[in-house]
C-alpha cells in the first residue's frame, strides 16, 4: 500500500512502519505505515473506535502510563526509534507536545499553567519565564484576552480559552510536533473557528498531527488526510485529493457520509 501518493518537499518528521498495537489482548492498530511531514498539518479521520487516538498517543507514549500496552513494528521521530529505547519518554514528550480532547488546564493561575513546562526544565529566571509566557500566549492567540488577568485561576476561563491555554502550555516547552486529539470536540463553533485558525498558523512552525471527527475541519486545516478504519490505514494523501478524488471505495463512502 502506498504510504502517500504525493511528492512532498518537506522532510519526514514522524514515521510509522507496520505498527501493531494492543491494549492487553485487544488489538487496536493493525500494520499502520505512514509518513508525517515536518511543518505540515496531517489530519486523521475515521469512525470512532477505529484507533485514531491510540495512534496519536503512540508518538508521546502517554497511554502507557495507565494501560497495559503491546507494540510491534517501528515508530520513529527524525529517524530515531521511539519504542525501543532510542529516546527517553520524558525527552520524547518534551519534543512532542499534546493537546487533549477535553481542555485539561491545571488548577493553577493562567501564568503558572503556561510556565509549567519551562519550570520543569529548570528555568527560574523571572524575566525569561515572563517572556516565554507572553510569546506562548500570543502564539495561541490568547494574549490579548488574558494579559491583564494572568494571576487568575485557569479554571475561571471559558472552555475555548482553556483549550487555547492548553495549546499555549504545550508551545511553551518549544516542541517540534504538536499532537491534537479532537481539540475542538468540546467547544462551540466560535471557539472552534479560533482553534482552527490557530492550527493554520501553527503548522508553519510545527509538525501538527491531529485527530478530528469533523471532515470539514480536516478539509479546512490539514495538508494531508489519513483515513482509518478498524485499526487500519485505508488511505492517505493530500487533503484536497482525498476529498475530491478518493481512490478507495471505503474512503469515498466515509467522506460522502454513507457510514460512520
Amino acid at each position, binding site marked *: 500500500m502506498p504510504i502517500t501518493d504525493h511528492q512532498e518537499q518537506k522532510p519526514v518528521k514522524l514515521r510509522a512502519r507496520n505498527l501493531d498495537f494492543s491494549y492487553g489482548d485487544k488489538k487496536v492498530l493493525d500494520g499502520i505505515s505512514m509518513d508525517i511531514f515536518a511543518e505540515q498539518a496531517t489530519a486523521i479521520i475515521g469512525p470512532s473506535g477505529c484507533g485514531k487516538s491510540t495512534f496519536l498517543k503512540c508518538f508521546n507514549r502517554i497511554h502507557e502510563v495507565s494501560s497495559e500496552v503491546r507494540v510491534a513494528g517501528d515508530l520513529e521521530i527524525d529517524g530515531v526509534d521511539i519504542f525501543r529505547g532510542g529516546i527517553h519518554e*520524558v525527552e520524547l514528550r518534551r519534543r512532542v507536545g499534546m493537546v487533549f480532547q477535553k481542555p485539561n488546564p491545571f488548577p493553577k493561575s493562567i501564568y503558572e499553567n503556561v510556565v509549567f513546562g519551562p519550570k520543569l526544565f529548570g528555568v527560574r529566571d523571572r524575566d525569561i519565564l515572563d517572556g516565554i509566557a507572553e510569546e506562548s500566549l500570543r502564539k495561541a492567540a490568547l494574549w490579548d484576552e488574558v494579559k491583564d488577568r494572568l494571576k487568575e485561576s485557569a*479554571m475561571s476561563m471559558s472552555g475555548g480559552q482553556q483549550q487555547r491555554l492548553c495549546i499555549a502550555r504545550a508551545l511553551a516547552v518549544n516542541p517540534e510536533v504538536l499532537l491534537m486529539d479532537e481539540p475542538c470536540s468540546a467547544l462551540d463553533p466560535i471557539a472552534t473557528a479560533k482553534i482552527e485558525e490557530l492550527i493554520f498558523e501553527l503548522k508553519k512552525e510545527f509538525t501538527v498531527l491531529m485527530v478530528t471527527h469533523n471532515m470539514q475541519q480536516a478539509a479546512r486545516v490539514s495538508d494531508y488526510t489519513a483515513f482509518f478504519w478498524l485499526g487500519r490505514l485505508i488511505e492517505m494523501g493530500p487533503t484536497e485529493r482525498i476529498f475530491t478524488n478518493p481512490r478507495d471505495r471505503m474512503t469515498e463512502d466515509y467522506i460522502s457520509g454513507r457510514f460512520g
Partner: protein
Amino acid sequence: MLMLKAMPSTAGDPARDAVPATKMRLSIHSEGSRGLRFLLDRGAHSVFLACALVVVALIVGILVFLSLRGFAAFLPLAGNTGRTLSFAEVFLSTEWAPSSDKFGILSFMAGSLSVTMLALLVAAPSGILTAVFVTLLAPGWMKTLMRQVMDLLVGIPSVVYGIFGLTFLLPLISAKWLKDSPAAGFFAAACILMVMIVPTIVSLSMDAFEALPRTLDEGALALGSTRWQSIWRVLIPAASPRLLTAVVLGMGRAIGEAMAVQMVIGNNPAWLSLMREATDRAPLIRFLFTPAATLTTELVQELPNTAAGSAWNNVLFAMGLLLFLMTMGIILATRRLGQRGAV
C-alpha cells in the same frame, strides 16, 4: 399494581366489564390492601418523624445542658455551691489546684494542642504519602487491600489502642531510651494518637486523589514531567483542599480522644511546673517524657470525683463545652474546605 392503576378508567367501560371474576376479586383485594398500605405509610411516617424528633431533641438537650453547666462556672447561678470564677482565671492561668481554689486550665489546653500537633506532625505527611503511593504508584490490588485495612483500623475501639500503648509501647520506650525511667507523656500519647488517626487520613486522602481527573496527570506527563514531578507539582496541589480536609478531620479525632490518651499520658495536671523543674534532662526529652494531661484526660479523671454545682465540677463542664466548640469549629472548617475543593 397494574390492576390498581387500571381500576378507575375501566369502571364504566362496557367492553372491559367482562373481566373474569378471579381478576375482579384480585383487583378488589388490592383496593383493600391499598387502604391498609396507606395507613401503614402514615404510621411509618409518624414513627420516623418521632425518631427524628427524639434525636434532634436529645442533641439540642445535650447542647443546652452542656452550655448551661459550662457557663455555670462564670455565672452566679442558683445551683452553684462555690464561688463564681472569672474567664481570665480559668482560661489564662496554668495553675490547677481545685483544693486550694485554683482553676486554671491553660495547661490542659496546651496539653491537648501538644499531643494533637505531635501526632499530626507524623500522621499528616505519612498518611498523605501513603495515599499517594497506593493510589498513584502501586498496582490496583494494593489499593483495594489498603482500603480494607484502613476501614478495619478505623473501626478498632480506642481502648484497644490504649491497652497496646500501656502494655507494649510504654515499657518499650522506657527500656530502650529512658534507662527504665517512666515513659508516660506526650510522646507515647502522640504515638498512639498517630496510629489512631493515620487510617482516617489515608482513607480520605485516597478519596482525594481518586477524585482527580486522569487527564490532569496525563497533561503533566505530556509536558515532559517525570512521575514524581507530576505528583508534586500538579496532583498534590490539585488535591490539596481535600487533603487539608483529611488532616483536619484527623485532628478532630485526635483532640477528642480521651481513653487511649489517658492510658499512656501519665495524668499529671501540674506537668508544666514538673517540666520546668526537671532541669537535669534536655528540654525536648523533658517535653516528650514528662507525665502530663489534656482537656479530655482531665475530664475523664476528675469528673466522677466532683460534686455537682461546685466550682470544680463547673470548670470541668466548661472544659467539655470548649472541646465541643473546638470539634464543632473543625467540622465547620472542613465543610468550608470541602466546598472550596469542589469548585
